[in-house]
């Protein structure tokens, strides 16, 4: 009997098994989760698009403020979902020994991050697709290329899914996790070009804004939404990939240090 499966390499069942766990749990609580996936982003979309948009004549490169802001809000919201999954939810899974139990099956730390990040991507896609359909119904997504927003949705799920682990893996208690929002989510939500073009920021702030990965995601999403893709969107995508190539291994390292004693 050959029981020895090689330790290196990825065991696919580990990833699908964890993903299924999250999906089952999600379905159990869908009535609550749906408020966050769909209702909240739509409220923000309506407030900013119909409300703030009325006060603003137009933004460079976009026919209306609503059309400018829609892809930005959609990406910002996707970021919240991915981050929340792997910071707050993953912290609870650490704290309640859910990963500890999972590790009694033939799963590795790398596969745990893969399963969770795959779920973060799933959540990101769900909220992006849901909100984008509503935005399209309002007439704020008009180009056929807008379907491509799914691509930055996936990228946001991966990058911010990995980023969330940097917090949950080292958090001593849940209060620590508020840092995810004060240090990462809020600054990015407001300074990554969702609400206004980064070019109007002071010169010294602009590079800082470009450093934030959400800026790249918003830039790409807007390229698809307005049908104005060019080479800069490729650079933005490569930047996100490069950043993820640093963050993800760091997340695995920290989670291993936390769980394997």
């Amino acid at each position, binding site marked *: *009997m050959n*029981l*020895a*499966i090689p*330790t290196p390499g990825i*065991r696919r*069942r*580990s990833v699908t*098994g*964890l993903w*299924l*766990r999250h999906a*089952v*749990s999600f379905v*159990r*609580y869908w009535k609550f989760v749906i408020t966050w996936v769909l209702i909240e982003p739509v409220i923000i979309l309506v407030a900013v698009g119909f409300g703030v948009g009325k006060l603003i004549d137009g933004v460079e490169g976009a026919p209306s403020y609503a059309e400018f802001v829609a892809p930005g809000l959609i990406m910002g919201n996707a970021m919240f979902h991915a981050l929340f999954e792997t910071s707050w939810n993953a912290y609870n899974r650490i704290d*309640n*020994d*859910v990963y*500890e*139990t*999972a*590790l*009694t*099956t*033939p*799963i*590795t730390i790398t596969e745990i991050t893969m399963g969770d990040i795959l779920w973060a991507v799933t959540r990101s896609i769900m909220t992006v697709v849901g909100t984008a359909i509503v935005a399209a119904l309002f007439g704020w997504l008009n180009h056929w290329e807008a379907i491509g927003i799914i691509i930055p949705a996936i990228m946001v799920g991966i990058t911010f899914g990995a980023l969330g682990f940097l917090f949950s893996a080292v958090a001593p208690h849940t209060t620590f996790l508020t840092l995810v929002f004060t240090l990462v989510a809020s600054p990015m939500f407001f300074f990554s070009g969702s609400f206004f073009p980064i070019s109007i920021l002071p010169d010294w702030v602009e590079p800082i804004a470009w450093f934030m990965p959400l800026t790249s995601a918003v830039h790409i999403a807007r390229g698809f939404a307005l049908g104005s893709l060019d080479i800069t969107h490729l650079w933005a995508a490569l930047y996100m990939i490069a950043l993820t190539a640093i963050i993800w291994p760091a997340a695995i390292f920290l989670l291993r240090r936390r769980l*394997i*004693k």
Partner: protein
Amino acid sequence: MTNESQLNRAATLNPDGSVIKADEIRKIYGDIAAVDGISFTVEPGETYGLLGPNGAGKTTTMRMLSGLSPTNSGAITVSGIDVVKDNRAVREVMGVVTQHDGLDNGLTVFQNLFLHGFLAGLSRKDSKNRAHEVLEFFGLRDRSKSNVYELSGGMKRRLAIARSMMTSPKVIVMDEPSTGLDPQSRNRVWEELAVLKDAGVTVLLSTHYMEEATILCDRLSIMDHGKILDEGTPDQMIERHAPKEVTQLRVSPVSIRTVRAYLTEHNITFREVGALISVTGANGDRPDLSGLKDLEGVRTSYRAGNLEDVFLAITGRELRDG
């Protein structure tokens, strides 16, 4: 059950015929050796216990054996698998009950089992069927749809044990299977472990309950400060280290001073826990307590030596001191 089906239930063996073999394993945290070079083997179908107080290194030992924690040195073989080299493969064949139940509060009882089985590699259909079987066996069928946080402590523990049975493992490690349970739930867990034993499952468990070790274990090791101090069957251990008989005096407060003075005066060693004084005579003979006969509020009884006495004799400490 025929011999053949019993054979089918047996675990794959190590080259030396054992199921679990730990050889000089060591785990160091900082400058403290949590496990300090211990060796033992568990034979097929055996229930083997690690008995010791909290902090003795039992949990760390079990985590190393089940591939959850790397060793600093030493060799571990489980069902022919080199655990140090391939910690993933050992988790394919071994059931593990961790110290904290590790149940998933986001899921129902059934989902906890089903998803664990699926993660472990069963097909969805097999995992569902097995979850139903296991729920039936552990008497949890009517709680199938409950949230796990609604369960009592005893039910949670049994669910955690049930979960480790999802893949029908032939070898299980259990970290303190009945710690924190009320006596009734504990008995229930013990009954279920007895059924597993009858089915030929090899069990390694840790405990700091003398009674649990006596009832469940074929053989056991006494651990303290990361080391194994002695090993044997419960009877062997008692014969080796414990007095045949211990005299117990239940003393009321009015007489306690008199009794202490008498014992000290006659050079009789004793230990006092609460209202109970335990006395062991020299060479296992009953000590001469004739002088206490007429004293008011002293009741004398005799009990056989037990693992508690063994632990005291070997370590100089009470097991319950932790």
